[in-house]
């Protein structure tokens, strides 16, 4: 929500009187006073002043809506608008204006809010205004039926305020989609404690969709059906929900799928297995470029996971990633993965093993992407050995996949290999231990320390020791190598390499800065000398500058790269291709 703080006038802390407000309005300074919060610092005080303005306007002493109609509000700078919007939101419920004038002013205020999420707040104020006198809502309905476009646009609010499901249902049969949509939306928002009535509404909504081709209607329908099914006061039968839901989802419109994703987390009814199944089946057809829908889906999947329905959610995500390989990044579902990674380890290990052993490249790539943060923290996984496959072929295959996909995440790869070595037979263990030597230890000698900490009683221990021994033999031979200065690159080439690295790092630094959300909000100071700073700052309230000391800290980042990247980069790429592309044994 956009807002901007202004410094209140230091001498003012008393709310203005009605006379002062009127004088301000007449002087054309009311909006300026609103902008500066009338010099007040307490929110409730400000809101009370806004309400009094509304009352004064209702008494005919000032015409607040003229400020909107004249364009004075629109003329203000956008950063000041939402301060003014708050004023009108507080004042509108107290006004006494002709219906159409009010509707028009509210429309204008909503449009001035633009794409901001808070732009529609005036609609809530309008609802409050309508509630104060039901005749106003009736008037909207009457004007709608008379064909007035402004009234039709606000029919939903009128129906909501009247809270009469039967009344709202009459609009489901209208020839006009906009009116049907208003009826559907109003039904989703009004409380209806009678499950039979809600069932009738659900059926009516399904029938109101016609051929199901209108994405706007279908989107509203998905929301409404599940909202109705989720209300308290007796359940709507699943068999009643499903036909309407199926009809709404049939055309797979973008708006409809967005609401379907939203419904997964927003509505209790979406957790019913049959309902979730239909939603997931429809969401397989979502457009992978629609970030809004993906964000909704992420929350929905997390909700499913948290409520114990991971067995539905994870296969769905797998199917979605496979279907949209190359177009959809797994990291779009960051809430889901965060829940997975911080959740119970048996669930995490089962998921990893299942996706690795599937042999699907999209899932392997997703695992690599998702678990990269674990590697950054050098975290190993306690892979549940009960979750591992039982056949030797599959264990060997899993080991190769683990290496292929987690080659850049050695802690993860090592965890899996150790787990496999703990359960497999000798014939399988040999090549798996071989993978531990090459490529894991060969690329990441640091993993030796981690492996050495495997408990002595672990069945994998003998194989680990053999692998370490083989690795030590390799390292000892390298350590015994004498210096061969004739092989070293020349100073000239070293200098070129150094300059190239410096240029690359500089570019990366600039690119990272460009992505920072913080850098545009703060003042930059570049310190050339010293390890701490002393600056004299000026407060918002004015007055003498005060000293502010700050110690400088350091920020560092490191990551392990495989040694093969230096010794044999093409070999590394070929190894990735071979291990990642290996088909699952039949």
């Amino acid at each position, binding site marked *: 929500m956009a807002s901007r703080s202004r410094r209140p006038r230091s001498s003012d802390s008393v709310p203005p009187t009605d006379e002062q407000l009127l004088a301000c309005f007449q002087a054309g300074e009311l909006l300026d006073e609103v902008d500066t919060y009338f010099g007040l610092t307490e929110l409730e005080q400000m809101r009370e002043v806004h309400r009094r303005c509304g009352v004064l306007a209702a008494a005919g002493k000032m015409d607040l809506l003229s400020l909107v109609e004249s364009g004075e509000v629109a003329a203000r700078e956008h950063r000041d608008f939402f301060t003014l919007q708050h004023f009108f939101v507080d004042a509108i419920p107290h006004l006494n204006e002709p219906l159409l004038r009010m509707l028009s002013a509210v429309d204008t205020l909503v449009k001035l809010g633009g794409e901001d999420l808070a732009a529609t707040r005036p609609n809530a104020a309008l609802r409050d205004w309508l509630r104060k006198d039901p005749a106003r809502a009736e008037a909207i309905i009457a004007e709608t039926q008379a064909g007035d476009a402004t009234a039709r646009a606000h029919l939903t609010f009128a129906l909501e305020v009247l809270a009469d499901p039967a009344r709202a249902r009459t609009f489901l049969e209208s020839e006009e989609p906009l009116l049907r949509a208003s009826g559907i939306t109003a039904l989703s928002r009004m409380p209806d404690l009678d499950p039979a009535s809600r069932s009738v509404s659900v059926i009516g909504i399904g029938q109101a969709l016609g051929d199901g081709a209108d994405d706007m209607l279908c989107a509203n329908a998905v929301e409404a059906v599940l909202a109705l099914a989720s209300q308290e006061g007796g359940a709507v039968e699943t068999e009643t929900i499903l036909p309407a839901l199926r009809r709404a989802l049939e055309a797979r419109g973008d708006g409809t799928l967005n609401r379907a994703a939203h419904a997964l987390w927003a509505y209790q009814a979406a957790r019913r297995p049959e309902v979730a199944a239909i939603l997931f089946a429809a969401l397989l057809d979502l457009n992978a470029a629609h970030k809004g829908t993906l964000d909704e889906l992420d929350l929905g999947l997390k909700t499913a996971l948290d409520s114990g329905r991971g067995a539905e959610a994870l296969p769905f995500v797998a199917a979605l990633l496979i279907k949209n390989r190359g177009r959809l990044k797994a990291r779009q579902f960051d809430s889901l993965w965060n829940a997975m990674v911080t959740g119970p380890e048996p669930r995490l290990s089962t998921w990893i093993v299942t996706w690795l052993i599937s042999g699907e490249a999209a899932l392997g790539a997703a695992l690599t992407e998702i678990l990269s943060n674990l590697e950054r923290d050098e975290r190993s996984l306690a892979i549940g050995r009960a979750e591992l496959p039982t056949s030797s072929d599959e264990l060997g295959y899993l080991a190769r996949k683990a290496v292929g996909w987690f080659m850049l995440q050695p802690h993860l790869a090592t965890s899996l290999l150790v787990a496999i070595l703990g359960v497999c037979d000798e014939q399988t263990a040999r090549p798996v231990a071989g993978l531990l030597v090459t490529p894991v230890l060969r690329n990441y000698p640091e993993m030796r320390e981690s492996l050495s900490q495997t408990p002595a009683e672990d069945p994998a221990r003998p194989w680990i020791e053999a692998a370490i021994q083989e690795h030590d033999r*390799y390292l000892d*031979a*390298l350590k*015994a*190598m*004498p*210096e*061969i*200065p*004739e*092989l*070293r*690159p*020349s*100073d*000239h*080439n*070293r200098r*070129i*390499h150094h300059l*190239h690295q410096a240029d690359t790092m500089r570019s990366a630094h600039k690119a990272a800065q460009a992505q920072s959300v913080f850098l545009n909000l703060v003042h930059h100071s570049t310190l050339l000398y010293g390890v701490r700073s002393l600056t004299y700052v000026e407060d918002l309230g004015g007055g003498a500058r005060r000293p502010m000391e700050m110690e400088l800290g350091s920020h560092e980042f490191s990551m392990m790269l495989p040694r093969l*990247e*230096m*010794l*044999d*980069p*093409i*070999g590394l*790429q*070929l190894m990735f291709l071979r291990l990642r592309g290996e088909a699952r044994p039949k």
Partner: protein
Amino acid sequence: MRLLIVDYLASLKERDELDAILPDLLTELGFNVLSRPRRGTAQRGVDIAAVRTVDGAEVLYLFSVKAGDLTRTEWNGPHDQALRPSLDEIKDSYLQSRVPPRYRDAKVVICLCFGGEIREGVRDRVAGYMASNTTDRISYEEWNGGRLADLLLEGLLREQVLPEAMRTSFRKAVALVDEPDVSYQHFRKVANQLLSAGRASNKTRVLSVRQLSLCAWILFVWARGAGNVEAAYKASELALLYAWELRRGVTNPKSREAKALTLAIGQIADLHVRTSSELLDGKILPAATIEDGLSGAVRSSTAIDLNLALFDMLGRVGLYGIWLHFMSTRAEGEVRAALEAQTLGVVAAGFAMINNNAALLLPVRDDQAIDIAIFLQLALATGADGRQIRLWLEQMIGRLVFSLRNRTRYPLSSGDYRDLIEHPRGDADDHFEDMTRGSILIPTLALWARPLGLMTELKVLSEVVAEDLAHCTHQLWTPDQTSEAHLYIDDEAHGYALADLPVDADGSALFEIVRSAAKRLAKHLDGLSPMSAQIWPVVLVACRHHRLPVPPGFWIEALKTPADADPSPPPDENAEGAGGDEAQNT
């Protein structure tokens, strides 16, 4: 300068290292050298016999040479190389029966010659011996390192023939052996000036070559002492090539100057082989059997540096082996057998290098095909196991195809280190075409693939060439009529590019064209002076040092398959193969 030479002389490790410079030194001083040092034991205690006219009378000088300081052990120790027994042998045996009749009545000066000093502990004994054995006819002189240095400065290195500017460059070359590139550049300055000075007359040719030899030797000894012979290796190649250039200017091969030049070139070639041995036998080949040993010894974090260093070293290994093989063909008996065994050891070590260092499976620069070709030439010459060659080239072609198809880490036709470090700068077509505009590697691999039976790989390579490298000029190089004037000193471009070679699916067209071209232009290759003098490795030294492809005349015949008919000779020309007697079928 004197200090530099004194230190050099004192640093000589082996007697025959001192032998290398003494005859030339004596000749420059006006001595007539009657006999030169031979490998193994001295002739009745005499290493060098020379005659000089002193005060109108001929005096016979008999030198008994030792390296380093004269210690008690070196004076009269138990081993048969001790000096005193040699002096006794001169008196008892040489003077009785080995003096040429002409000098039987001449005065004799027996010279105790050593690179260092007489240790104090043995000085009295030596002085006593000399005093008690001096007669009217026989006298003794001490030619220690200091005296030799002075004589060098009066002779080979006198101011008139090695002016101060050259001495400065030479001192820098020696002082900076730890920075091989810089050291080599300074040596090259000296060599260029010696080359230029040498062209004045036949006499100056001989002097320049001896100076080149001496300077190269001094640089080698210093570099050896510093533990880094890189500059000395390159200097020995340059010295050999410049010496050859000076030699070929002598039109009468039977003249005294021609013989002196041949002798001096032999010494430089010996130095070159010795330097190669110091580097390769001493450091590289023992490390070849250690997995990733040489790669790790490069001490760089970039794959580019590893690749450049290892392929360069592979080319040197190939050249060293070729020299050993060449020497073996000119030896007999046990010496021949030993050289042959050593050659095979070098070949085996070369393949061990390849098997243990994955960087050698694909070059980063196209011109590294030169190093590959030199090593393959060695393999041909020694009849190496074709399976090892096949395995190597099979992997190389596979990786080449992979890198070209994926536009990642493919070999560049640019030699600029900056291009290598920044490669690839994206996969855009124009960059790819710019970096692959010409290739000697691809036709070389294609020609070798065919006789090795790598037909699938050859077919795939031809497809990549057709689809992705239509812009690339596939080529090889061979000498032309101007090459003799430029090959050794690389002052101008020369030779034929066998251009636009077709890389066809079964390699037969490529083979026929290259073979036909080799036959057609054989006279130019055969006409090179090293070829006619039957010291053909000099051509390969030139190719390696000046980065020219190995002419196909050396190897193309060895790559024919049973399906290839022997070609008819070109009209009006003798169609004798070039180097073909050194090539063997694999």
